[in-house]
């Protein structure tokens, strides 16, 4: 008998337990080969079988050694519940089972290290959006539209919009003429593919999203824009016509910008916009984090860095203040593209978001072309779990507060509000987007959902969440040359395209009953909720 010390880690301490049926197993080895976390292994177990075959009991005991698949009792090789073993097993002999008695949180901080993971918050998955209903349906005097027959203008502004009195319009006879230029505004689809970098994503996953973006634009006339993430872009893409579908991101690490700047003289078209990332909903107050495990040679090349943990600072560095440094960045980004490309800003939703938005609205230079608010339910490739689960701010009330702050000063719509962080968390992004629009957002951004459409199996109940390890079992969040081949780029892109076409049809299905052919931005009167507290907070109708 082996000696077991009480402090030894055993399988029952881990968050997932492997359920294995040796009588179904043919020892083909598929499960072991597919497990990127090295959580299971082939081994040999003793069996002792007592058999009696005669008319009278005449028990005999047979001892044998049988080959089995078994789970490793190791924290570093803990099963994450990705279920790849179950997926590949031809005989349904193995599967992970959630272990409610896991002691992982108590054991995993060995050596004083914090727990790091990817994915979303696993503690705050309560959904305000599901408690809101589109409750104002046009009936008689105000007929509903026909979602199949009517035409709908499903477009949102990306860029700084001037107040009517600031428009440089002069009447020439019966016509108005613009006398000078106005800040650039691009009207795009109200759903942006959010900023996930090459590095956080495998090049193949990034390519799948870029492919879907181009396809939706070129074949379906849906002006979807994709944000590069902080990690640069392939030079060839920057030199191609397709750059126009991309929003370039600059974040506090400035990763990838050398390449972007060097590619600028070669650019045939302007990018769709610039997004300055200040913060991220999943880990507000923390900079980006790309663990060394994922800093493969091509990532080093694009970002111009050695193989090391790449930690973007928590804020943009400036001599005087973050405001000053962001202002400088705004000005230089605007100037870099000769004021033809709108520049927006992305912040983590926070108790202070309204103040930030007010500051931007009152900026005399009028150069902020969008306020992207990212809520606590946003995803990330890598973060400290304590940040993921315990910091952040729900997005719904924050967007509403920002919108109403603008309403109070008559400046709604001047800096378009884009909301993200949990949009599409339940798989129904059209309804989420619609409700956020009614509350005052101009558009939404999707991140995690896109990789879920590519095949990511992670969820908010602790499944997988291993984007930070470089061992992504679906080939999406890894740079391992073997693993990335698991992702079928075309199929992933096709899934995104299909989803977006359905989302477009579903948006129309929501716009038609409320009688609107253009986006219902600020139409809070169209919403009701059966939750009194939500009704009071969002200033929408309470219904029961």
């Amino acid at each position: 008998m082996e000696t077991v010390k009480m402090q030894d880690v055993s399988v029952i301490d881990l968050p997932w337990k492997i359920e294995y049926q040796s009588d179904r197993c043919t020892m083909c080895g598929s499960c072991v080969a597919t497990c990127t976390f090295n959580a299971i292994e082939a081994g040999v177990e003793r069996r002792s079988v007592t058999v009696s075959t005669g008319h009278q009991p005449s028990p005999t005991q047979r001892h044998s050694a049988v080959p089995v698949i078994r789970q490793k009792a190791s924290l570093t090789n803990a099963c994450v519940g990705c279920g790849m073993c179950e997926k590949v097993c031809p005989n349904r002999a193995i599967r992970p089972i959630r272990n409610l008695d896991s002691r992982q949180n108590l054991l995993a901080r060995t050596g004083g290290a914090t727990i790091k993971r990817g994915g979303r918050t696993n503690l705050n998955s309560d959904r305000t959006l599901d408690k809101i209903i589109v409750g104002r349906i046009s009936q008689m005097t105000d007929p509903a539209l026909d979602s199949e027959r009517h035409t709908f203008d499903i477009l949102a502004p990306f860029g700084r919009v001037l107040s009517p009195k600031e428009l440089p319009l002069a009447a020439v006879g019966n016509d108005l003429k613009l006398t000078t230029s106005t800040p650039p505004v691009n009207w795009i689809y109200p759903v942006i593919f959010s900023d996930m970098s090459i590095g956080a994503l495998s090049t193949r996953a990034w390519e799948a999203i870029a492919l879907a973006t181009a396809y939706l634009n070129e074949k379906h006339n849906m002006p979807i824009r994709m944000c590069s993430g902080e990690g640069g872009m392939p030079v060839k893409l920057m030199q191609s016509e397709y750059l126009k579908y991309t929003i370039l991101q600059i974040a506090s690490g400035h990763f990838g910008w050398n390449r972007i700047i060097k590619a600028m003289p070669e650019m045939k078209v302007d990018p769709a916009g610039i997004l300055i990332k200040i913060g991220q909903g999943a880990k507000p107050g923390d900079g980006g984090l790309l663990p060394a495990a994922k800093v493969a040679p091509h990532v080093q090349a694009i970002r111009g860095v050695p193989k090391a943990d790449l930690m973007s600072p928590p804020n943009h560095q400036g001599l005087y203040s973050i405001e000053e440094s962001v202002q400088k960045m705004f000005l230089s980004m605007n100037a870099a593209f000769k004021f033809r490309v709108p520049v927006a800003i992305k912040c983590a939703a926070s108790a202070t978001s309204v103040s930030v938005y007010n500051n931007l609205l009152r900026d005399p230079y009028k150069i902020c072309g969008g306020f992207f608010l990212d809520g606590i339910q946003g995803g990330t490739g890598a973060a400290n779990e304590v940040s993921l689960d315990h910091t952040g701010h729900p997005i719904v009330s924050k967007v509403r507060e920002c919108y109403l702050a603008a309403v109070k000063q008559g400046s709604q719509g001047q800096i378009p509000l884009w909301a993200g962080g949990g949009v599409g968390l339940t798989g129904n992004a059209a309804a989420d987007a619609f409700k956020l629009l009614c509350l005052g957002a101009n558009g939404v951004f999707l991140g995690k959902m896109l990789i879920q459409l590519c095949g990511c199996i992670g969820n908010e109940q602790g499944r997988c969440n291993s984007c930070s390890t470089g061992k992504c079992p679906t080939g999406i969040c890894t740079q391992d040359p073997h693993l990335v081949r698991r992702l079928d780029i075309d199929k992933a892109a096709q899934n995104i395209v299909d989803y977006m076409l359905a989302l477009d049809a579903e948006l129309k299905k929501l716009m038609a009953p409320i009688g609107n052919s253009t986006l219902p931005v600020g139409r809070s009167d169209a919403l009701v909720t059966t939750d009194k507290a939500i009704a009071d907070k969002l200033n929408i109708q309470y219904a029961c």
Partner: protein
Amino acid sequence: MCRIGAIKSKVPFHPSKALYLMLPQQEGHDNSGFAMVMQDLYGRFAEYKDKPLLSVACTQKGNKLIEDFMDNNNFNPVYEWIPNISKRPGLDIKAMPYYIFRAYDYPEHYADTTPEAKAELLLDIRLALRELLEKAGQGYVYSFWPDVLTLKEIGDPRDIAEYFGLWKETDELTAKNIVVQCRQNTNYDIVRYAAHPFFLQGYTLCANGENTFYTKNKEFQKSLHRGYIGFESDSQNFLYTLHYVLHELKWPIKYYKHVITPLPFAEITTRSDRAELTAIRQSLGHLEINGPNTIIAMLPSGDMMTCCDSKKLRPVVVGRDENTLAIASEVCGINTILPDRDKTLDIYPNEREVVLINERLEVERWKQ
């Protein structure tokens, strides 16, 4: 759906004509009120055209409040029309004790000021009077503007007309322009302020139908101008936007339609004025209207305009003879007052069209 109408004539006419325009349109609705704005007045008011005319319904106490306020603000009454009220029992009218139609002289120190300054003063006075009466619960002030008279009341239009003696065609009270409506608010509470036509600084407007962008319009308009108040009806949005585009932004009238029902982006991009139209759509997105509706508006010049929603979910007709032109949401009303007109000249504006009628009854039509 409200029935709305307007008559514009080269010769002054009596308000009974407006009633004849409206009553045939009553089928299918409740005829729950009567409201009209008369502009370019003749009869008793002919010689006071340049004097601001106050239109109020109030109590005795309200009348006193107004007299004191106007006196304190150096407005001296120069003429008052007192309607010959009929109090026949059984009339369906929720009458107020007092109706004031009183012309004033401007305060002396305003004698030489610009028309713009006077316009601001008149608005300030009306808003102050409204607040005064509202706080005291003593009445309603509808308009305070030279050469404009507003009458609104709740009840059956026939009985309201009898109450004010409007069936008796005299020369006492006539005008060249009347915008009229015969129904109280059916969506929300019946409030006198909710009855169209609405009036602001020379702009008059009535609209039927529904504006589903009411909330977003209202939230934006509230901060645009001190006169954009009330919002008792979603149709007030149309007036405030008209006032904002023409009076505040001073844009040519054709841009009103571009603001309330902007062209789809796909169409804008094909036009030579796409830069301007895009800029307008961007900056005035919150003034876009949606839902079914028809608009009839009268401008300070007396020009009238009509247009409808961009999906053509509400009708409107313009018919005319040599001296009179009528706009109505239903053609039967026009048939009654202009039976001998050439019906082939009737105009049924389409969803992108605007019809403008000037002082000489010349009709201008254009598509946005």
